[in-house]
C-alpha cells in the first residue's frame, strides 16, 4: 500500500536529483545557481513531508534566498562562465 506522502517524496527526490545533476554540469554559473535553488525547493517540500516544519522554516530562506543572493553577488563580481 502506497500513501500519498510516499509518492510525493518519490517525486520530489527525483526532481532534486535531476536538478542537482544539471547544476553541477551547467557551464553558465547563473543558470547553475538557479538549478541549485530549484533542487533546494524540492528538498524543502521533502522536509515538510518528513514531518519537519522547523527545518522548512530555516531551510527555505537560507537555500532559496540567501545562498543564491550571495552566489549571484559573487558571480557578478568575478566570472560568469565556468572555464572549459
Amino acid at each position: 500500500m502506497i500513501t500519498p506522502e510516499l509518492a510525493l517524496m518519490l517525486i520530489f527526490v527525483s526532481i532534486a536529483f535531476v536538478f542537482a545533476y544539471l547544476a553541477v554540469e551547467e557551464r553558465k554559473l547563473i543558470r547553475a545557481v538557479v538549478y541549485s535553488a530549484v533542487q533546494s525547493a524540492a528538498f524543502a517540500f521533502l522536509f515538510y513531508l518528513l514531518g519537519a516544519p522547523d527545518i522548512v522554516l530555516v531551510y527555505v530562506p537560507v537555500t532559496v534566498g540567501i545562498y543564491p543572493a550571495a552566489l549571484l553577488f559573487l558571480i557578478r563580481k568575478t566570472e560568469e562562465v565556468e572555464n572549459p
Partner: protein
Amino acid sequence: MSGVRKVASAVALLAIVAALSLGAAAGGMGPFFDGIRSLGAFYLSTAPPQIAELVLGPSYRGLSSYSPEVVTSIVWDYRGLDTYFETAVFFLAIIGAVAIYRGIEEPVLRRPASGLSPIVRAVTKFLIPINIAVAASIALHGHLTPGGGFQAGAALAVAPIIVIVVFSRRYLLERGVTKLKALFFRSAGLIGIALVVLIPVIWSVISGEWAWVMQNQWKPGAEAFSYPAYLGGALISGSIWFLNLFEFLAVSFGFTILFLLISIDEDTVRSCMIRGGEECDRY
C-alpha cells in the same frame, strides 16, 4: 552538451539508481522508516508539560523543559551546550568574513541611489514590514509553534538582501543600518545569550545554593532557582523564550553585516586595497 542531452543523462542516472533500488528492494531495506529510538521517545514524552506531568508527576518538574515544541526544547535545553558552541562557530565565521573586509568602506556616498522602478519599490516598502513581523512572530512563538531563533534570524536576513537589490546599499545606510550598528546588535544578542546562560551560576555564587548551568527549570533535590515556566498565565518555557529572542538578534544582524559587506562596489574595494588611504580606513 546541450540542455536536452543533460536532462537525458540525468534521467539515465536516475534510472540506474532505480535499477539499483529494485535490486535492493528484492532483498529488503535496512532500518529506515521504522520507529524512533528510545532517546527520541524520551524527548517526546518529557518536553511538553502536559505529557511530562503525566509521565513524571508534578514533583519532578525540572526533568521537563516545559515547551510543546520538542525541537526547540532540544536545541536550547537538552543539548544547550551543543548549541552554545555552535553559536560560537557562527560568530567566528562571521568575524572571519568581516576580517577579509577590514579597512574597506565606501569613502563618500556620492552617487545617487539607483535601483528598480517605482512600482517595485512601492511593493517592497509594503512587503518589508510584513517580513519583519513574520520573523518576529516566528521568534517569539518559537517555544509554542514550529520556529525559533535560528529560523526567525534566517527569515529576517532576507529583508536586507531585498532592500539592497530593489533600492540600493545607500538606502539601507541612510535608514541607519550600518555595519557598526549591526555589529553592536549582534554582539548584544551574543552577550544576552551568555547572560541568560550564566545567571543561575551568578545567583548560586551570591546566595550559596545549588544551581545548574544551561537548565531552564529547577532540578529535583535543589529547588533553588529557575526561570519561570509560566508568566502571567502564559507559557514562556523558562529560558527558552529569552534564548530565542537573543539568538534572533544575533543571527539576523550577523547576516545583515555579511550582505552589507558583499554589496560594496568592487572598484572601491580595489582602490582601497591598492592605496590603503585614510579615507578608506574609517573603521
